[in-house]
């Protein structure tokens, strides 16, 4: 664009000014676009929050800004019968599910990354196939199994127990990361007399902390957001509902109150967003790992 090969002092300074001008215009263009995009991403949150704080009557109008601020809407939602139970159930599902997944998936990911054995590629293909599988494919026999054989419908256990037997996505993500850890570390530990399991716990796990954090976050979010699972197994028993499932029925019970519904929506979104701010780095690393590594 600008040529700096010929150098008389005059042309150099005009060329420099020109370049600065182009750079400034470029800066303005990029940041105007970024602001426009930010409006698209942020405004929905803003409108939801503003509506959540309106009075019952005003929420039915086209107004965008609350005349009076009704913070008590949040309290009303919090005290709605059931809301606290859904909260507790969701937390139990997410915490137990995440713990079970980690404990069961780490050794499997390690074996798939490190050990050489016949059928390893078949095992890997199966992991990826199950990872891509819509949960609806096997839901009919699974429901019969949990509901008819084990009498566990109306609880969240049919969703939590399988996580003690690994989760395909977690295995995949952990394995991708474990492949990047040099073999020498484990070999050195083994020379020092560590068994394979001890080497995994003492040497590999501390090095794999970012991947473990990412898997834990993903699994926690998965449980928190799950709608289909609770719909299948818990719908018959409101005492076992989760936030994602209960939120919808909340709308049913308050069908004319957009303000309360939006307040409930905010209260379901809040924990996930707060968690994100605490663990931003681990999260972004995890997303990158799923797409780019390998």
């Amino acid at each position, binding site marked *: 664009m600008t040529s700096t090969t010929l150098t008389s002092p005059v042309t150099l300074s005009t060329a420099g000014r020109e370049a600065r001008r182009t750079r400034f215009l470029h*800066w303005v263009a*990029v*940041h105007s676009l*970024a602001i426009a*995009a*930010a409006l698209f*991403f942020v*405004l929905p949150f803003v409108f*939801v929050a503003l509506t959540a704080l309106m009075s019952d009557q005003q929420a039915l109008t086209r107004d*965008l800004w609350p005349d009076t601020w009704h913070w008590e809407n949040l309290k009303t939602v919090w005290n709605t019968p059931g809301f606290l139970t859904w909260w507790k159930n969701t937390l139990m599902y997410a915490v137990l599910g995440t713990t079970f997944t980690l404990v*069961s*998936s780490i*050794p499997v990911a*390690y*074996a798939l990354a490190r*050990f050489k054995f016949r059928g390893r590629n078949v095992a890997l*293909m199966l*992991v990826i196939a199950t990872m891509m599988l*819509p*949960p*609806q*494919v*096997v*839901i*009919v*026999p*699974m*429901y019969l*199994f949990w509901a008819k054989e084990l009498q566990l419908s109306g609880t969240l256990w049919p969703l939590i127990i*399988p996580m003690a*037997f*690994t989760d395909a996505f977690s295995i995949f993500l952990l394995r*991708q990361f474990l492949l990047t850890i040099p073999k020498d570390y484990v070999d050195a530990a083994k020379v020092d007399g560590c068994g*394979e399991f001890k080497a995994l716990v003492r040497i590999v796990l501390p090095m794999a902390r970012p991947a473990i954090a990412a898997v834990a976050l993903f699994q926690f*979010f998965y449980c928190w*957001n799950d*709608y*289909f699972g609770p*719909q299948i197994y818990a719908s018959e028993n*409101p005492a076992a509902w989760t*936030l*994602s*499932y209960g939120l*919808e*029925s909340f*709308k*049913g*019970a308050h*069908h004319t109150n957009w303000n309360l*519904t*939006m307040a409930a*929506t905010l209260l*379901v*979104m809040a924990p*996930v967003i707060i968690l994100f701010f605490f663990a931003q780095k681990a999260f*972004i690393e995890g997303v990158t790992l*799923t*797409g780019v*590594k*390998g």
Partner: protein
Amino acid sequence: MTSPGLRRKHRQDALRTVAFLSPWLIGVSVFFLYPLISTVYFSFMRYDGFTPPVWTGLKNWSYVFSDYPFFWPALRNTLWLVIVMVSLRVVFGLGIGMLITKVKTGAGFFRTAFYLPYLAPPVAATMSFVFLLNPGTGPANNILGAIGLPQPGWFNDPAWSKPALTLLALWGIGDLMVIFMASLLDVPLEQYEAASLDGAGAWQRFWFVTLPNISPIVLFAVVTGVIATMQYYTQPLVAGKVASGVIGGSGQQFEPGYPEKSTLTLPQLVYNLGFQRFDTGGASVVALVLFALAMLFTAILMRRRSGFLGND
């Protein structure tokens, strides 16, 4: 030829491998292989969940393909979503990813703002959008009206319900943004410099340098997008329920696809047949169709991206 010592070592290795893999071996058998075989079995049976199953041959299959009114609309919607929603998501994700690599001032703020909607729980995000886009009092139509643009019926109009779902999907672009951002930063700078020296403009640099470098990631985004479309369940179902006003916990029956079957997707059919109509056989047929489609695209993904499994 192998010595007994070596053989013992082999046996120990095999035992160790089985021990490490055991949680997965149980999991994949009980929660994948067994139910998959069982689904094939039920697809040839008439079974309502109460009376014992009866062999019916191909009756379930012919029912789903020729008499079940939801199957073809759901398949057509899936095709629409694959063509429009998936490609718009890839283009938009790439655009936002490029934008964020160019932003100098307030980069942290913009990155967080662009990423955050991806984290909104699907039910909460969908309910928010049904409110934002509601034709009567929603802020979106409010603004469109103020600047003199047409105000569509969004989730209440069969012609606009899928575009509304697409907007919701574009709002949650954070995952693709991060993946594209990382791959854009990996493009060697020298290639851009060389192209500039050769007199390439911005568009040519994008076409001849950026795109060839990130094409594996574009393919990855397209195929995983298609696979995600096969699993697309919560958003269309909740949008239909909330927009139609038929909601509530158990008991209440909701005909999926509101308005006029325009939001039906294949996973919803499994629920509709298996859990609302108690037609285990029909549900199994749809489940197998879904399985075949998901595996087809997974195979494409693994074929075209041999690096997907990683090398050691």
